[in-house]
């Protein structure tokens, strides 16, 4: 047994370059349950981060009683991380679950039946459509539903109602990944594969604290590091993360300056002649523009802006310029910061310059945050069109109209789809009166919370909230719909690596809770949305119908699912798309042939100017004549719009801890995880703490121009001048509203977004920090992560984070050979186990 709170990544199983990552099956069963007691194991995958680790759920007497990783799956080779082990079922099987719909009566939410709740929604919806038209409706969904549910919502919004106001909190986590790939390659679609970790010589993590955001993927890296020929590691992160501790080069950059650093790396690669001239000539356009844009950015110039030594920048560039196989991963440190798309495109540019794409160990992983974010992007319940279609291409609109048998005029395509921040702005101004929020919690997760709370509380906004629990957001709702959770419904989802998994229903949902798909289908039925020949727009009866409909929609597009069936997904490994006649076992990595989806008739986007977000347009895009070549795109560096000054002298950044997901609606209900990270904190560098008279655990007030939080201070190894707060800590477990000591990191963040991806900035604000109370103990921050304390000399060390009895898992190694692509999915095709 291993304490998987104390040991987040579990026991090492080292392997060497080009080897297969050994299997290790992680398992937890409830107290008092032995393996022989389990009635059945139901196949699923974890929905607590974008890794999507395949698992089996243990069921006994109609309840979920345990979980184990699936050895034969390409993603995790049997492993699970702390969240998967301790929060997947514990996060849904909880007494606080909503069991019946609620409607607001005389200011109070009261229980009612489904018919009452749905009638209230439909009446309001119909009235508004008649009075003010489709632009009065907005839908804000999640990165945590299933593919089938997003697709249903997309069809409802785009073909039923016809509103462009649809987005998800995927906007907060993954919009830049999609945007950067559209700009560089012409369409969304992860170029690389997790198997590239197995073969690389160098691994660059750009703003990606993989050790905490995707713990199982980091286990894979740790096993390479423990092997005989470890890859060199370069980490760009202002915090002293676990990644930084293993790095050969750690660039502890000032928040908001990523693009300056990237310009210097690109410039250095070009200046040293490390680019692959043949690849650049055959597979790219736009090198001259890139060269010109980076010209002023010597390592010294970037060092001055970014606050890191020029020599370290050169070292990082040398590793990029001279390694034979390079993998880069990018996440929120880039996506949620200034000039997000431009900085992330520079990562693509580095790989294009060196031809580091589409071969083993050579790839880019533009990561996602949430487990099913990928599907929202594919299905178009966010600001995209289904199947990575291009809203500016009339033929693509015609295709969708044909698929759905509706008038193409219904499908909103006269302007870019409305992004989340703009949806909330329209709600603030009163032109959106009907807002349906599913499976997400903007009252904690959006920037500048005081403003978001005011919007949600607006009396003339009709707010529907569909969730597992009465979240901070649900407390503002006019109608609350109880949804079925993970393990209580069937559907598919796709991880960051394009691998599609099926999650089968294991148990019944509590009370009257229904699957999100059933709720959306019920709404569509009651609204009587029809096709051109008068039939129902959505005639699906269950998830498999929805999946089959989605397959037709994906046909011929980059995310082609036509070769996948529910049956194929049962028993073996998940399968990476595209999976079709040409690639019957799926596709491990994209662009091996150096042909990119930039054909103007095929591409998902004609692109944008990266400084302003101005659209390029069809004509100008055609004139570039990219025809299958990738595009070097960039923008001039611009300093962040809010920089430290006399009143707010410190830089503020936010993020995750390994033990929690999102706003803790699930992980906060797991005992081992809450014990590991029970309450909010803020991290301050030793130098800053000394100057401000702050010691470990002191209560401090952090103030920005928007608001304040009051939380204990952890004195940590963060870069001096920068403070960090985890974003998980809202108010559901402390009475629902910020009390005297607010804790939500987003009280402080500002309302601003990237001009291209429209992803809000969570990683850059100016704050001031002051002590307001003495410590009563150490800060409630884990010691096992980036928030590890730096003890002042002569003080008692902070006790190490451990899980004890409730956090034990078994780890079984060497049970079977490791799965390998394509055999793992081929066996699925033959109906056998690998």
């Amino acid at each position, binding site marked *: 047994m291993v304490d998987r709170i104390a040991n987040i990544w579990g026991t090492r199983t080292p392997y060497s370059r080009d080897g297969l990552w050994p299997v290790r099956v992680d398992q937890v069963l409830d107290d008092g349950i032995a393996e022989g007691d389990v009635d059945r194991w139901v196949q699923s995958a974890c929905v607590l981060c974008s890794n999507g680790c395949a698992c089996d759920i243990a069921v006994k007497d109609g309840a979920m009683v345990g979980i184990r990783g699936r050895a034969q799956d390409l993603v995790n080779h049997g492993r699970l991380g702390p969240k998967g082990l301790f929060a997947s079922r514990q996060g849904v099987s909880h007494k606080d679950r909503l069991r019946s719909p609620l409607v607001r009566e005389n200011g109070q939410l009261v229980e009612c039946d489904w018919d009452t709740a749905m009638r209230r929604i439909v009446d309001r919806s119909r009235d508004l459509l008649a009075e*003010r*038209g489709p*632009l*009065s409706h907005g839908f804000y969904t999640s990165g945590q539903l299933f593919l089938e549910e997003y697709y249903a919502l997309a069809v409802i919004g785009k073909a039923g109602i016809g509103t*462009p106001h649809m987005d998800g909190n995927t906007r907060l986590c993954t919009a830049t990944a999609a945007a950067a790939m559209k700009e560089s390659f012409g369409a969304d679609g992860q170029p690389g594969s997790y198997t590239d970790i197995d073969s690389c010589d160098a691994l660059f993590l750009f703003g990606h604290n993989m050790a905490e955001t995707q713990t199982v993927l980091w286990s894979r890296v740790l096993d390479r590091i423990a092997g005989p020929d470890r890859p060199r590691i370069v980490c760009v992160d202002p915090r002293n993360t676990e990644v930084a501790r293993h790095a050969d080069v750690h660039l502890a950059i000032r928040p908001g300056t990523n693009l300056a650093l990237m310009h210097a790396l690109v410039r250095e690669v070009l200046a040293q002649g490390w680019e692959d001239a043949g690849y650049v000539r055959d597979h790219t356009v736009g090198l001259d523009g890139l060269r010109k844009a980076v010209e002023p950015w010597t390592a010294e110039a970037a060092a001055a802006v970014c606050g890191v030594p020029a020599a370290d920048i050169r070292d990082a560039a040398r590793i990029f310029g001279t390694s034979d196989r390079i993998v880069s991963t990018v996440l929120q440190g880039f996506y949620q910061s200034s000039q997000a798309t431009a900085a992330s495109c520079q990562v693509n540019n580095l790989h294009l310059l060196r031809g580091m794409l589409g071969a083993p160990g050579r790839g880019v992983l533009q990561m996602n945050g949430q487990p099913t974010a990928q599907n929202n992007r594919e299905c178009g319940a966010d600001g995209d069109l289904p199947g990575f279609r291009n809203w500016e291409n009339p033929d693509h609109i015609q295709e969708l109209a044909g698929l759905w048998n509706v008038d193409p005029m219904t499908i909103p395509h*006269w*302007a*870019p789809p*409305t992004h989340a921040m*703009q949806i909330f*702005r*329209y709600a603030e*101004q*009163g*032109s*959106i009166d009907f807002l349906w929020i599913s499976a997400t919690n903007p009252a904690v997760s959006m920037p500048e919370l005081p403003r978001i709370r005011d919007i949600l509380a607006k009396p003339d906004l009709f707010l529907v909230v569909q969730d597992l629990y009465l979240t901070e957001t649900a407390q503002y709702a006019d109608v609350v719909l109880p949804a079925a959770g993970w393990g209580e419904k069937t559907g598919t989802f796709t991880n960051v690596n394009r691998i599609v998994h099926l999650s089968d229903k294991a148990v019944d949902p509590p009370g009257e809770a229904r699957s999100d798909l059933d709720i959306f289908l019920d709404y569509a039925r009651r609204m009587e949305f029809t096709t051109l020949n008068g039939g129902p727009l959505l005639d699906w009866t269950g998830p498999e119908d929805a999946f089959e409909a989605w397959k037709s929609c994906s046909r011929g597009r980059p995310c082609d699912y036509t070769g996948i069936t529910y049956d194929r997904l049962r028993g073996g490994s998940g399968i990476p798309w595209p999976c079709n006649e040409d690639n019957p076992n799926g596709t491990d990595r994209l662009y091996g042939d150096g042909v990119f989806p930039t054909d103007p008739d095929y591409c998902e986007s004609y692109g944008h*100017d990266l*400084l*302003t*977000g*101005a*659209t*390029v*347009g069809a004509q100008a895009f055609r004139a570039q004549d990219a025809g299958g070549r990738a595009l070097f795109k960039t923008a001039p560096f*611009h300093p962040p*719009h809010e920089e430290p000054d006399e009143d707010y002298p410190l830089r503020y950044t936010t993020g995750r801890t390994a033990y929690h997901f999102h706003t803790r609606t699930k992980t906060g209900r797991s005992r081992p995880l809450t014990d590991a990270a029970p309450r909010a904190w803020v991290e301050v560098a030793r130098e800053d703490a000394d100057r401000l008279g702050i010691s470990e655990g002191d209560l401090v007030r952090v103030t920005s121009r928007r608001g304040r939080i009051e939380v204990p201070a952890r004195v940590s190894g963060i870069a001096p001048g920068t403070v960090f707060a985890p974003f998980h800590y809202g108010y559901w477990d402390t009475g629902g509203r910020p009390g005297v000591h607010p804790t939500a990191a987003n009280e402080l963040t*500002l*309302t*601003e*977004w990237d*001009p291209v991806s429209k992803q809000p900035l969570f990683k850059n604000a100016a704050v001031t920090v002051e002590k307001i109370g003495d410590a009563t103990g150490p800060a409630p921050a884990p010691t096992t992560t980036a928030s590890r304390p730096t003890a002042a000399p002569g003080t008692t060390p902070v006790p190490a984070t451990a899980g004890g009895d409730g956090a034990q898992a078994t780890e079984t190694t060497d049970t079977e050979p490791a799965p390998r692509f394509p055999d793992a999915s081929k066996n699925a095709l033959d109906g056998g186990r690998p």
Partner: protein
Amino acid sequence: MNLNIYLGMLRQAENTLAESFRQVAEGHGAEPDVHFLCRTLAAQCDRHGELLHPVVQRYGDNSSDNEPERLHAQGLATTRNGPVGLLRDLQDLYLLASLVDVTWTMVKQAGSALRDKDLLAVVDQCDAETATQLRWLQTRMKQAAPQALVAAR
């Protein structure tokens, strides 16, 4: 040679556009994208003025020619409110930027006739940025128009 007249007009137009971008930035602080980008673009216009400086030194800058202005493009004195107000303010910026754009084009014609490589290099850089300013204004207006004209109260 009358190029000095057009250089004067160009300086004036960039100046007016810069001031108007600033005006809109301040007037529409509740639209953060408009607010921040208009400030960035105002700085771009200022820079265009600086880049023009050596050209003006060579050819002169005659902003008081005898030909009186028939069309007055004096820039935005104040900004409007609400969704339609935002749309109209952006539209005014669009008109001002178009004036800048076409003036650059005429200066470029003269520069070509003069075979003045330095002048053409300045035109190249600035006019491309002005074109992007126009495209951004159009992108943002197209986004705002349906809501402002159809759904806003």
